[in-house]
């Protein structure tokens, strides 16, 4: 019997069990198979279950009557259906569900990776020790835990493939190839030569990860087409018995906006990530996606493309599997009955305390660390425990506890490191990936389709958070502080004579003692400006502010700089203006720097009018919120899309459009049009208006001191 030690690279179902790939210590890629039975359960009316039993007798499945636990209903008499063909489970379940739709089904759609890791106690990308005969796995032993702070890095072979232009705009002529320090280009003039070249590269380099731009939407579909045309077989999978798995493009509504996801191409035995089609990849990159895969049990390829919600659901499923709780296929719990008064009491979000408008000096910002998850863990808030006294630890706190602890530990390490340390970027990406899992966990408690969600538990979390914020406010006021603003989990406080970090330590300790939730000092602002509504200067707007910390770092929220639809040019100048204002040490000095800002703005406008601003800095990005036919009066993005549609492009809701404001009939010029905008056709007045608006935001706080109306 042979043995090996390495990292678990990939796990997927096949007809005879499971295939797994190991990246071994001696740099080999080991493919192993193992027998693997999978079971799902059906519960409900006994006469129906009997009929289902008779129906299944004809199928390739073993049946058993047993008792299993439902999280909400407790022990249930169920029919266990076991098959040794995991790849055929979905088909078998689908057929049964169509025949018997009124039965309750459990464990039928658990990803195979989760079943594997809960059975073997290993984790994706984790270290393990395997023993095997030929290609058959005999035993697997975990050598690491997903909660390790400093996992041994995987020596991944990464091949990067990028076309020389966006294939949606024009036909690429070359494909840039990058592998380690080597970089070269493959010509796309002759598909035949290109296919031969790429095939040779794939065989020679045998990458673990193919990182592409437009791989999902262009390269892989194109490879399939060229393969058919030239007769050259090219299978980008490491597992040569498998074709590339593709999923169709779709538009969906989530987090208040329509999002477009292009078609996707998944590989077996190696990973493919398209940087242009990976939802959160821009936020935390490969390291973050790997961290999420490690803790959630969902493969890196999927985790890079899916929302963190899929990751947290997987973690809840794993907790359920490990604790003998069945995972319902469909949510069965609905909101409990409430009187109107009860609904009014319960149906609230976090506490938002309107800020005091204007400039304030020596202000401390203090934040509760991961407030909502910490509340869920500390107060045992879970759908099955809400409203119960002394309930055992619920499924949600059990899932979150290690995640919360790991993130706090990573953050502590980060705060001790020198910002220039080479580990900082990686640790930040990992901490951010974990943060997103924690953030969505709260939302999922109240999400109507979440299997382990119940709105009452969601409401319990916000109710607790409001109470804790009020406690924090009272503690601060008792100690003589003025609370300038509170926003869900952070407070801005001020007291005459308090400006050093240590001045705020007694307050932080007192709040932590009172609430039992960790709280940290984000920093002390030299000055901070809370903004007023653009419609009525007497109305404050929450979470719109900018300020400068004592170390000179700027912090801004809710202003143009943070908005995705602001042009680079406006953003650059607004940031430059803030950097000028950051020289002010007190609110009183703020006005002294306004003339410098005005000069900066005038220079910028002059540059714009004389055509010295690169056009790509003036691109506006906006999303389509509906189909083009659905617009009564088309938005600028829709008008740009119409220009491209005339040239044969198709658009779906959620797709992002880039355009310039132009002095033509439609008022816009789509950036992707082949012809560039003629000089002099740029709508400079429109851009100046955008800049003025952004400047008003940063200069409004000193309005009481200056006659700004004259300036703009």
């Amino acid at each position, binding site marked *: 019997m042979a043995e090996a030690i390495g990292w678990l690279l990939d796990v997927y179902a096949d007809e005879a069990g499971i295939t797994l790939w190991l990246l071994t210590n001696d740099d080999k890629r080991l493919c192993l198979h193992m027998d693997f039975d999978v079971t799902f359960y059906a519960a409900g009316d006994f006469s129906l279950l009997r009929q289902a039993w008779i129906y299944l007798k004809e199928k390739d499945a073993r049946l058993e009557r047993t008792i299993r636990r439902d999280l909400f209903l407790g022990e249930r008499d169920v029919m266990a259906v076991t098959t040794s063909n995991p790849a055929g489970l979905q088909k078998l379940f689908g057929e049964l569900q169509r025949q018997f739709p009124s039965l309750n089904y459990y464990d039928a759609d658990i990803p195979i990776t989760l079943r594997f890791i809960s059975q073997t106690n290993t984790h994706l990308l984790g270290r393990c020790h395997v023993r095997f005969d030929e290609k058959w796995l005999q035993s697997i032993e975990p050598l690491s835990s997903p909660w390790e702070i400093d996992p041994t890095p995987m020596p991944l072979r990464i091949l990067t493939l990028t076309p020389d232009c966006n294939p949606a705009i024009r036909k690429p002529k070359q494909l840039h190839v990058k592998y380690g320090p080597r970089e070269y280009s493959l010509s796309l003039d002759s598909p035949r030569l290109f296919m031969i070249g790429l095939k040779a590269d794939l065989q020679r380099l045998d990458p673990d990860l193919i990182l592409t731009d437009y791989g999902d939407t262009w390269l892989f579909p194109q490879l399939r087409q060229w393969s058919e045309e030239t007769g050259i077989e090219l299978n980008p999978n490491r597992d040569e018995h498998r074709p590339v798995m593709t999923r169709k493009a779709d538009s969906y509504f989530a987090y208040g906006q329509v999002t477009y996801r292009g078609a996707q191409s998944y590989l077996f035995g190696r990973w493919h990530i398209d940087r242009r089609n990976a939802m959160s990849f821009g936020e935390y990159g490969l390291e973050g996606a790997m961290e999420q895969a490690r803790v959630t049990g969902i493969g890196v390829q999927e985790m890079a493309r899916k929302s963190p919600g899929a990751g947290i659901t997987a973690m809840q499923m794993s907790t359920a599997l490990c604790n003998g709780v069945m995972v319902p296929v469909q949510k069965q719990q609905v909101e409990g009955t409430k009187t109107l008064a009860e609904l009014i009491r319960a149906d609230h*979000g976090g506490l*938002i305390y309107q800020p005091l408008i204007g400039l304030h000096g020596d202000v401390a910002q203090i934040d509760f660390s991961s407030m909502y998850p910490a509340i869920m863990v500390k107060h045992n808030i879970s759908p099955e425990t809400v409203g119960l006294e002394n309930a055992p630890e619920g499924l949600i706190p059990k899932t979150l506890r290690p995640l919360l602890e790991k993130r706090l530990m990573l953050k502590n390490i980060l705060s001790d490191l020198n910002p220039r340390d080479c580990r900082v970027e990686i640790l930040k990406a990992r901490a951010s990936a974990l943060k997103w899992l924690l953030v969505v966990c709260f939302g999922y408690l109240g999400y109507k389709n979440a299997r382990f969600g119940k*709105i009452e538990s969601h409401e319990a979390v916000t109710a607790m958070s409001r109470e804790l914020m009020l406690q924090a406010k009272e503690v601060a006021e008792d100690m003589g502080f003025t609370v300038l603003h509170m926003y869900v989990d952070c407070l801005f406080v001020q007291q005459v004579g308090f400006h050093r970090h240590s001045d705020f330590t007694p307050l932080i300790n007192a709040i932590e003692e009172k609430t039992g939730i960790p709280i940290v000092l984000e920093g002390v602002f030299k000055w901070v400006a809370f903004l007023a509504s653009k419609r009525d200067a*007497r109305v404050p707007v929450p979470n719109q502010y900018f300020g400068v910390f004592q170390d000179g770092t700027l912090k801004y929220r809710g202003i143009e700089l943070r908005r995705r639809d602001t042009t680079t040019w406006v953003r650059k100048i607004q940031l430059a203006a803030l950097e000028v204002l950051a020289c002010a040490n007190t609110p009183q000095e703020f006005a002294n720097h306004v003339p410098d800002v005005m000069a900066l703005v005038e220079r910028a406008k002059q540059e714009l009018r004389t055509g010295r601003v690169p056009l790509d800095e003036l691109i506006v990005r906006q999303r389509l919120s509906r189909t083009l036919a659905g617009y009564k009066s088309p938005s600028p993005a829709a008008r740009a899309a119409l220009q491209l549609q005339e040239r044969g492009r198709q658009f779906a809701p959620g797709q992002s459009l880039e355009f310039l404001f132009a002095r033509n009939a439609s008022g816009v010029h789509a950036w992707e049009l082949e012809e560039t905008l003629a000089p002099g056709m740029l709508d400079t007045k429109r851009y100046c208006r955008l800049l003025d608006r952004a400047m008003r935001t940063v200069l409004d706080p000193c309005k009481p001191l200056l006659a700004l109306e004259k300036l703009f």
Partner: protein
Amino acid sequence: MGRTLITITQQLNETESMLSPFRRTLRRSDQYVFDGLFAAARRHIAAIGQEESLLPFESALLAMLLEQSKEIAVLQQKIEELIKKNG
């Protein structure tokens, strides 16, 4: 997200638009003062929300009164300072 009831901010907006015929009939100078009353209420959205009342506008009226009392107190203080200064 995930709310069943409309927020206090939305309720105040609705009340304000319900009162728009009232506002329209006021003199321009009075309209500005009227808007000020709603601006005063909006500074206390959090407190109105915490009230758990079926009629949040009652709490909004209290918030308007509160801001007015604050303003009166500030003005009183200024008058006292002026009286002291001018003997």
